[in-house]
């Protein structure tokens, strides 16, 4: 286990009682406003001392109330992207970015991070002269450049526009895949979570409601911590080929899936989240449709959701697919367990945010 | 040249500053003149200050440092007189008429329990049997120069100060003189302090000499023989 957190903290009106063990990679804390996500991260960072418990990062005990161990924050070697920025107001952006580098084991290069964040023109300004999103980007850069053993990111992209997000997300992915720096990440954005998470910890009212690999938690129709739109299946695929018309063909358990160009070499594995509400279910031949991806399979479960919808679980060669349909459609189509069906997904519906390595 | 450090009451500053060059020229000693209130100087001397000579503005503080005084060197150097001053008006008699003259104003004095000029003044009024009536009308200040200032700027119609002070302030005039017999005699004792060498004695002697006496007299002091 790369990160093990078991802590308890009592406050008037709110009790935090969290326990989870996460493997490496990116662990997302997922939960509603006020559920205790920031509290967990603060405890891991050493900024808020739990009443009791134990926090272990890659075998290193950060906190242990029983053994009276409590590493001070500066010796935990973490990079924390705070929910509210916390830039040093008296330093220029450049100085902010460089602050942690002095203490880093390796001195990281400023320019790639600066470029990725698009803050090159801001280097000589002070935070007081930055826009909200600019501040947030600098805060991300500052944490990254401290070459941390672990990254804590509390809604790092909340104030960013979709285009900027799309530029930064791959960086987190690379961090997750190409280094062994574990990441603890808070996000409200289901697509972001699905794309990034290795492990999802669903937090509810200061407690862990569910924990598991991203595919499992997000694929569980019973878990929708932040709304029905978060429901979706995560499918493991492999890049089969890049086509000249800009499409990338994936091999999903033998079934071809097409999506907009993915900048990875052929042969590399790719994770694709298919949101349940974006799949159209067809019985028989769907005729000439613009949707390129067809996943034939068998219905393995039907589950009534809240409201007029229901979730159909479709077992396909590519893996389990979740489909959200109206009860009316289900009746009209006479859906039942065991029935063969085809899941139809538009290529362009598989947006960049839903695709990750 | 050898340096002689003289701790002297502030009120002697003008006189001693004038006397110093002559002494230095005549003897070759360097003088270091340190002025402060007698009480502060006496405490410092008690605490071991490197003074060679102490000139106090009253006897009590000289008494207080008796154990550091080189025996036989103490002498009363100067005397002073106490006067009643005002800004204007005719001279007054030191009797109950003072109260009328004060009107609603106050009588400026140095602290009557602590500062020599005040103590002497109070003693004089007590001897005149006026203190009881005057006491509630007195404005006491921390030193005699402040009492002088009160009268000079018109904040108080009358004040009790030394003759030397009155002489130096053109805005006031002497309205009455106190009989020296009414109060303890006003004395400025001087003495050599242990550690003070020949220079100390030489300076003390110089202070009693004719040159110094002339300077003191010009300032309005009574030069004691």
């Amino acid at each position, binding site marked *: 286990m790369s990160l093990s957190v078991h802590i308890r903290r009592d406050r008037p009106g709110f009790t935090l009682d969290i326990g989870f063990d996460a493997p490496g990679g990116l662990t997302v804390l997922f939960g509603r406003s006020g559920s205790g996500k920031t509290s967990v991260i603060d405890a891991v*960072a*050493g*900024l808020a001392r739990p009443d009791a418990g134990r926090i272990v990062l890659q075998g290193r005990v950060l906190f242990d109330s029983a053994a009276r161990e409590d590493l*001070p*924050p*500066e010796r*935990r*070697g*973490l*990079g*924390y992207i*705070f929910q*509210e920025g*916390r830039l*040093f*107001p*008296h330093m220029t952006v450049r100085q902010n970015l460089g*602050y*942690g580098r*002095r*203490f*880093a084991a390796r001195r990281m290069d400023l320019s790639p991070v600066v470029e990725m964040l698009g803050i090159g023109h801001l280097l000589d*300004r*002070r*935070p*007081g*002269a*930055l826009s909200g999103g600019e501040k947030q980007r600098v805060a991300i850069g*500052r*944490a990254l450049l*401290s070459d941390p053993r672990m990254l*804590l990111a509390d809604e790092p992209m909340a104030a960013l526009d979709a285009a900027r997000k799309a530029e930064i997300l791959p960086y987190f992915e690379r961090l997750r895949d190409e280094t062994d720096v574990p990441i603890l990440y808070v996000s409200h954005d289901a697509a972001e979570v699905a794309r990034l998470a290795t492990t999802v910890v669903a937090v509810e009212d200061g407690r862990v409601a569910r924990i598991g690999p991203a595919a499992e938690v997000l694929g569980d129709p019973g878990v929708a911590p932040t709304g029905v739109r978060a429901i979706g299946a995560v499918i493991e695929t492999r890049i089969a080929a890049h086509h000249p018309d800009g499409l990338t063909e994936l091999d999903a358990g033998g079934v071809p899936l097409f999506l907009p160009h993915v900048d990875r070499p052929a042969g590399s594995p790719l994770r694709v989240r298919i949101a349940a509400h974006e799949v159209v279910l067809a019985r028989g031949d769907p005729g000439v449709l613009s949707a390129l991806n067809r996943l034939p399979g068998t219905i393995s479960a039907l589950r009534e959701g809240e409201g007029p919808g229901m979730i159909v679980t479709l077992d396909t060669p590519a893996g389990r697919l979740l489909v959200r349909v109206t009860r009316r459609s289900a009746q009209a189509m006479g859906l039942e367990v065991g029935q063969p069906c085809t899941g139809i997904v538009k290529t362009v519906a598989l947006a960049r945010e839903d695709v990750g390595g | 040249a050898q340096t002689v*450090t003289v*701790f002297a009451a*502030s*009120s002697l*500053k*003008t006189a001693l500053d004038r006397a110093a060059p002559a002494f230095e020229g005549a003897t070759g000693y360097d003088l*270091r*003149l*340190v*002025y*402060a*209130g007698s009480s*502060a*100087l006496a*405490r*410092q001397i008690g*605490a*071991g*200050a*490197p003074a060679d000579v102490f000139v106090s503005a009253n006897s009590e503080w000289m008494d207080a440092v008796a154990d550091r005084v080189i025996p036989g060197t103490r002498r009363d150097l100067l005397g002073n007189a106490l006067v009643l001053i005002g800004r204007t008006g005719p001279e007054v008699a030191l009797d109950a008429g003072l109260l009328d003259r004060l009107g609603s104003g106050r009588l400026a004095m140095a602290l009557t329990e602590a500062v020599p000029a005040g103590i002497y003044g109070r003693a004089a009024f007590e001897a005149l049997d006026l203190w009881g009536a005057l006491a509630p009308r007195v404005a006491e200040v921390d*030193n005699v*120069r402040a009492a002088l200032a009160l009268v000079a700027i018109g904040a108080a119609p009358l004040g009790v100060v030394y003759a*030397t*002070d009155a*002489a*130096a*302030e053109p805005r006031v005039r002497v309205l009455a003189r106190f009989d020296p017999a009414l109060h303890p005699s006003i004395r400025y004792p001087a003495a050599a302090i242990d550690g003070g060498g020949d220079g100390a004695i030489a300076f003390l002697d110089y202070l009693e000499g004719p040159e110094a006496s002339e300077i003191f007299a010009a*300032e309005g002091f009574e030069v004691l023989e």
Partner: protein
Amino acid sequence: MTFWLGPEAQAALWLSLKVSFWATVASLPLGLFVAHALARWSFPGKQVLNGMVLLPLILPPVVTGYLLLLALGPQGPLGTIGTLFAFRWTGAALAAGVMAFPLMVRAIRLSIEAVDPKLEDAARTLGAPRAWVFVTVTLPLILPGILTGAVLAFAKAMGEFGATITFVSNIPGETRTLPTAIYTFLQVPGGEVEALKLVAVSVGVAMGALLVSEWLSARVARRIAGR
């Protein structure tokens, strides 16, 4: 200005500058430390320290000087280190520093309390040890407070008289600072004019220090506001 000041007054001016400068500079580190301790730590006896710092403000200066004399005079319990100070300009600096200490500590403490500890926390998560955090984050942010503290201390030192004259007397060239010179002039008939001249000089110097500090403070504020 020297041409209309007599040599004695000039000596007093330079001495006052020296004394006030060192009183301010030398007490700054301790002032910072104490202010930080009072603002951010909790320890037994904190309120005692707090009170002790305030003491020189409450005590009549003469009493402070007297206590210094008792403690550091040749016969005092600290007489051995006392020789470093007794009746020397260093003693004048010490007296001025002690008198100014409450002002300095209070100003600095106030600005330390105004620094968001969350910023310091952020610096620590980036690996900076506490001392480094203090130097690179807290210190620059409290610069206005330090400047205010320093200006108050300097001004106080330029004006300090009671404790100085009581502790180290009024020795020309050694401990005769501007205020003691002023006092001496005020004690003699006709000395007022000379005294007021010195007062003007001392006011001028303190105003200069004030302007410099204002300018620095404004610069810091402008930077932080991001202009």
